[in-house]
Every structure is written in C-alpha cells, then in structure tokens.
C-alpha cells in the first residue's frame, strides 16, 4: 500500500514524464489546470495513466472540485482508499 508521499511523488513523475509539465511549477497550491494546460484529448490520457499506475478509475465528476495539485492528489488518494 502506497503512503501519501509516494502517491504524490508518483503523480508528479507522471505529470513530468508523460505530460511534459515543468517540475519547477508543481506545488500543492498551484493550479492544476493552468499548469498542465491540458485539452479534453489529454485528459483521457491522464485518466488512463492514473488507472494503470494506481488502479483507480477517475470520472468527470472527480475533476469538478479539482483546482490545485493538492486537490488532485486528494482525489487519487481517496479513490485508492475506497478501493482498499
């Protein structure tokens, strides 16, 4: 079972490696949407990669309250907790 720090680190690695996000701009308080600059075609990739790495399936409603990176970490973490 992954701890919080490991989850956050893995998500950051994915964002840097797969979505070419500048590691410097990733911080818990930063805006996820503005930082990632993803379009709807990219979001489906993000959902697939999160599912393959964490075993949880994100749905549109999961992004409704996501503003910051921390919000996104929390969504993934909560989904993983529910799965377990």
């Amino acid at each position, binding site marked *: 079972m992954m701890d919080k720090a490991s989850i956050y680190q893995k998500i950051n690695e994915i964002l840097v490696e797969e979505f070419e996000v500048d590691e410097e701009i990733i911080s818990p308080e930063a805006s996820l949407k503005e930082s990632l600059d993803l379009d*709807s*075609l990219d*979001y*489906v*990739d993000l*959902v*697939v990669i999160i*599912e393959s790495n964490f075993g949880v399936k*994100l*749905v*549109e409603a999961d992004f409704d309250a996501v503003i910051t990176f921390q919000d996104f970490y929390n969504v993934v973490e909560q989904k993983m907790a529910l799965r377990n």
Partner: protein
Amino acid sequence: MLTLPISGEKLLTLIPQRAPIVLVSSLESYNENVLVSTFLVRADDMFVDGEKLSESGLLEHMAQSVALHTGYSYFLKGENAPMGYIGSMQNVEIRKLPTIGETVFSRIQIIQEFMGVTLVEIETKLDGEFIARARMKTVVAG
C-alpha cells in the same frame, strides 16, 4: 430491434456517414467495450487507389467502426447516431492493404471514455491475418 449482424440500409441508420464515403459493410458483434465490423472493398469506393484500398481509406474504415460503436450504443438508448470526428491517431501500423473484392474485419476495443472523448484501439484483419492497428481518440460533436 436490430438483429446482429447488421448491414445495408439498417447499418446506415447507425452512422452519420453517407455514400460515397461509407467504409463499413456490417456490424458483426457488439458489447459495451468491443465491436467487430467488416468492410468489403469495392471498385467504386472513393478511397480505392488502383486495386487497393488506400491507407487513408483503411484508417477511415477504422474511424467509422468506432462511429458504429457509438451509433449502436445510442440506438440501444433510443437516440440517433451523433456526428463526431477523429481527435488524434497514435501507434498506427499498416502492414498490408486489402484489394478490391476483399473483406476486412476490424475489432475495436474501448480503452477509456472521458468528457466526450473515446480512446480506442483498433485491429484489422484480412483472412485472419493481422494487417493494421491504430489507437484513436474520437470526439462526439456538440
């Protein structure tokens, strides 16, 4: 109720494309995540180049197979087939092109659907032999 396989005029109720750019001949099998379609290459198809279906024609056939999955799922919900477009193509591999008179079978696998975008993997066979594959994102318009 439409009984599988579906072809001809009934098939056209499930997709937005019309002649001369219809590149699916039948819907062979369907479930929520998988569909198998066929396409018989005819001499008068506008995507035929010489004796063979062009690469763009084969890719369009794949995309229309995805549209067929969307259209049939809408039909099952009692709704009309929506318009859509190809958002992107990745991992395209074409080993062989079918010739006039040959029928290809394509299997599409839905990988993910999110925000109106469908990510699918498509594999096409001819006489049981793998001839092409691609990963596509399709988008339902409007």
